[in-house]
């Protein structure tokens, strides 16, 4: 006579099925049209239904052998879990906390890496400067043709001066600026992303960037245009080079976490470092956007050296204050 009476697991299911369905309807509404589409009663019901479905799942696992029910409940509770414990901050709120707290705090937290990254860039710049100064042939080693665009040691002082104050024709400014922005973002994203491989590629990239910078300054100073090239570079470089240094710092931070995880597992350590570093990177992309504007428009339209220096040093001061300046301690979250 086995199996003649209705199964307990069947009765269990029949009793709870309605509340499962109710939860499913609410989840569907949230996934389709967002939290706002729920009625007050549904919002109140959601956590209760979630807990009761979770408990159904544990009971079903322990007592029911109906695979259909268990699979259904697993997927239903997972969906509810992701919604209840998912990101609940509104986009506007998220953006404002990013600018007010997250970004500068991330930059501050990574100050050591930033210092290393800046030191690497500076070292490479000085090295390249000295090398090219002593033997202009080094220039061709560091600088790819596409970037030099005729600005070589062989060029005359007039040609070089010309490039500082008149890059191409002014009509293409907008295109040039937007191209530079997406180009520089790529360099920065590479500097960040490559850090993952134990810092080494990031360090190489930073130094390479420094080499280009140094050899560039060298050929101009050779023709005694040092002061002028400084203005040409600093107006956007204060933002752009700073951004690339920060991207490098973010990359180094991750690389360090992967290479020396300490007491955590390598994976845990990497993802812990990754969250701080990626915040910083989001900010770097914004900085590069400004740098692109300054480079494309500001540099081409403003040809007075002193104003160039003024803008460059001004933006640098603003960034420094924004990142490292004292700020009010806010309670967390």
């Amino acid at each position, binding site marked *: 006579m086995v*199996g003649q009476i209705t199964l307990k697991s069947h009765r269990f299911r029949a009793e709870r099925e309605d509340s499962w369905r109710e939860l499913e309807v609410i989840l569907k509404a949230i996934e389709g049209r967002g939290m706002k589409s729920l009625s007050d009663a549904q919002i109140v019901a959601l956590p209760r239904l979630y807990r009761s479905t979770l408990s159904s799942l544990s009971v079903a696992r322990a007592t029911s052998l109906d695979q259909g029910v268990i699979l259904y409940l697993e997927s239903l509770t997972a969906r509810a879990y992701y919604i209840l414990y998912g990101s609940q901050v509104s986009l506007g709120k998220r953006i404002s906390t990013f600018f007010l707290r997250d970004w500068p705090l991330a930059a501050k937290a990574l100050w050591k890496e930033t210092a290393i990254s800046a030191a690497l860039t500076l070292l490479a710049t000085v090295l390249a400067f000295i090398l090219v100064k002593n033997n202009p042939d080094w220039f061709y080693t560091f600088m790819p043709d596409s970037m030099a665009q005729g600005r070589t040691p062989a060029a005359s002082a007039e040609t070089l001066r010309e490039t500082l104050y008149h890059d191409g024709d002014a009509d293409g400014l907008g295109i040039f600026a937007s191209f530079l922005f997406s180009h520089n973002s790529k360099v920065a994203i590479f500097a960040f992303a490559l850090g993952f491989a134990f810092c080494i590629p990031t360090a190489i990239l930073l130094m390479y960037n420094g080499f280009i910078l140094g050899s560039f300054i060298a050929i101009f100073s050779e023709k005694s245009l040092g002061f002028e090239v400084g203005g040409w570079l600093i107006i956007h470089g204060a933002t752009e080079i700073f951004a690339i240094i920060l991207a490098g710092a973010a990359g180094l931070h991750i690389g360090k976490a992967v290479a020396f995880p300490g007491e955590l597992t390598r994976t845990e350590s990497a993802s812990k470092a990754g969250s701080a570093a990626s915040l910083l990177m989001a900010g770097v992309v914004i900085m590069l956007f400004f740098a692109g504007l300054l480079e494309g428009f500001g540099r081409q339209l403003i040809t007075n050296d002193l104003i160039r220096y003024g803008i460059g040093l001004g933006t640098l001061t603003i960034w420094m204050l924004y990142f490292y300046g004292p700020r009010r301690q806010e309670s967390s979250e």
Partner: protein
Amino acid sequence: MVGVISQRKVDQRRLITPEGIDLQVQLADIGARIGAYVIDQIIINVGLVAAFFLIVFGGISAGPEVAITIFILVNFFVRNFYYMFFEMGPKAATPGKRMSKIRVASRSHARLTANAVFARNALREIEINLPLSFLFMSGDSVDGWISLLGLLWSGIFLFFPLFNKDRLRAGDLIAGTWVVRAPKPILAKDLASEKADLDSAFIFTPEQVEAYGVHELHVLENVIRANEFQTVKDVAQRIRNKIKWSKGMSEGDLDFLKAYYAALRGRLETRLLFGVRRKDKFDKT
């Protein structure tokens, strides 16, 4: 059928809720992820081509230079923020991922944050574009060997998901995320409830319902749900032989299986309540 069950075990990962229950998420398989990626790329590129024509032909009045500037910016934002925008939404999945029924989730108890989504997508650049740039690097500008070495090195990132047990991309590793299946199964009808409709011709002895364990019950459930004529016939025949059941005159194979399923489940669940879980037919408990 057995393959399906064991694949579930391989892909299963723990996800313990704050309430202390393991939700047992299933990792997305590589095929679904490649599929999702291809769909997303098609959407992005078709969208960009459409945007290009729209901007260039729509922007003639404002001058071609403005139009191209806008397009370069649109191109940059779409390529970089398409994934981030969709993965920050309530479904945590791009349209491609939705079609493949997968989603991004946090690996720990923590919620999936916007930062994590940013990090996992920022690394897309080296994972996909770096190998591609080495692949298409022209032979004359760089030594072929260097470009080959570069390809191998960057290939490590591309094939990263194949070489770790959680199928993490390098981006997932950094961001603390993984990609899991997000199916929406409909609640299937309880097979045991259908038994009531059958006539009472099926009465099994205790020895007959002792023949199998939970594993066989689940296989049987799949067979009945799939309801393929030949499989049902074969399985019914094998069970009859095993339990020495003599087939009645008008006895249908599917009806027999349903009845036996209900009886077996009843027996196994009763024993489950007493704390005995019989794994399979070899389990002597």
